[in-house]
């Protein structure tokens, strides 16, 4: 590949101490690269450590072994090149929508008078121009996600990390958000690492789909290239023949892991 690598995980292992002497290995030896301008989706069953892997790329978690390189340089501390879209609500509840978006600039020292108009522009581009003065609790779940997207994108990060960002939303809103994301992404093609448990969503959005095995000690067990033409429309692309073929192929691998993951989680519950 000629493009320089935006994110590279090399034999990254993630483990947690469980209070006593036991150690829980979430991810075993993950090798994963995201090229510049590449949209990579990680799919895996519940509890496979895909969010964990994302936190490693963000620098929120230190790998127990192995390394993380961002644009060829080893990552130390937080990943300053990355914007992170969280699964849970992460907006500052005490700030209005526009203040939530502007804060990313204000932190960098941009004067408020300059940050606010730019925040307004971003709110408009996520379709919330008229909601600038609302507090997060006055917005719907989908609207909050839009604000969160604007909050991350206004800082113009080179890498976008997304942890099941549309997970809590209903099916229709998810598709609308997916299209919005693709539109915004098309404008400047950042490197994206997108975690989801929804295979359809992954194929519809991404250039590459990476499959993880069921945890604990999960590994990356598959890597598919999605060559569906861009720009894509999430609604249309699902009707594509190639989409179906790819979906069947990947699901064949994923299905076993989902069943394993399900068995694991029920076992764990019984143990508790």
């Amino acid at each position, binding site marked *: 590949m000629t493009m320089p690598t935006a994110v590279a995980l090399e034999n990254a292992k993630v483990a947690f101490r469980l209070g006593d002497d036991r150690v829980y290995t979430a991810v075993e030896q993950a090798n994963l690269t995201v090229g510049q301008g590449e949209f990579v989706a990680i799919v895996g069953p519940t509890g496979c450590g895909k969010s964990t892997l994302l936190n490693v790329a963000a620098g929120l978690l230190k790998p127990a072994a192995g390394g993380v390189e961002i644009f060829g340089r080893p990552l130390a501390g937080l990943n*300053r090149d990355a914007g992170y879209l969280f699964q849970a*609500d*992460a907006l*500052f509840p005490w700030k209005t929508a526009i203040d939530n978006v502007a804060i990313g600039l204000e932190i*960098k020292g941009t004067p408020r008078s300059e940050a606010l108009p730019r925040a307004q522009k971003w709110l408009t581009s996520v379709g919330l121009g008229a909601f600038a003065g609302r507090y997060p609790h006055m917005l719907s779940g989908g609207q909050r996600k839009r604000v969160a997207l604007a*909050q991350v994108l206004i*800082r113009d990060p080179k890498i976008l990390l997304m942890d099941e960002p549309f997970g809590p939303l209903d099916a229709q809103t998810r598709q609308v958000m997916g299209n919005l994301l693709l539109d915004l992404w098309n404008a400047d093609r950042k490197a994206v690492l997108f975690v989801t448990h929804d295979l359809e969503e992954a194929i519809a959005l991404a250039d590459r789909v990476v499959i993880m095995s069921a945890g604990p000690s999960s590994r990356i067990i598959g890597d598919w290239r999605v060559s569906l033409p861009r720009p894509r429309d999430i609604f249309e692309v699902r009707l594509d023949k190639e989409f179906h073929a790819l979906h069947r192929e990947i699901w064949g691998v994923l299905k076993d892991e989902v069943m394993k993951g399900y068995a694991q989680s029920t076992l764990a519950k019984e143990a508790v």
Partner: protein
Amino acid sequence: MSRVTLLGLQILVAIVGIALWQLLSTVPVFGKILLPPFFFSNPVDVFAQIVKWFSSGVIWKHLGITLTESILAFVIGSLGGVLIGFWFARQPLVAAVFDPYVKMVNALPRVVLAPIFALWLGLGIWSKVALGVTLVFFIVFFNVYQGVKEVSRTVLDNGRMLGMSERQLMRHVYWPSALSWMFSSLHTSVGFAVVGAVVGEYLGSAAGLGYLIQQAEGIFDVAGVFAGMFVLSAFVILIDFGVTLVERRLLVWRPTVDGRG
């Protein structure tokens, strides 16, 4: 139920209550007055006493003193609670060391401190302020401590990923969270500031609502005691209303549980 009906019913309760009180304390039932005036006075006398206080203007001085004490207790107690609460929450070691002592002092019924404060600070307003402070401080302290401790992990991570420094996290995340917890206990802490002031006055002072009630009690002037109680509750309701107004302005960003907003 419409607002008007509700208000009508609320007023009706007051009228029935007062009428019963008046009747039972003046008209004998089966040859016996059920509420002897010596112990229960009657509404007319109580009302007359209140009117007398306000028309002569005596009451303003006492109200002013109690209000001053309450405000001072609230401000000092809150300030201390916010600072210490913040400090403890950010320094777990300090919190762990002081934990048993904080619990010990908080377990102490504050009224027993009143004589000590009277000895140390005299019979003026400061012994009452001190009593109020000990009440307000702990409420604010525990709330701020909790507020800083329980900042959502995700919001905190989001702040970090957006590039906030430790100082910026303090300003944009910890501080607003702590303040919101403090404001959510505003009614309680303001109420306790008044309790501290009045109890302090009652136990020894030369002015204030508590003093007024204590004086009336000293000469078996039951009408005076009741009159003092009514003025006091009206005073607290007014303050509480003020707090509600402040709260609505400061906590606009919070979803209202009771659907007021």
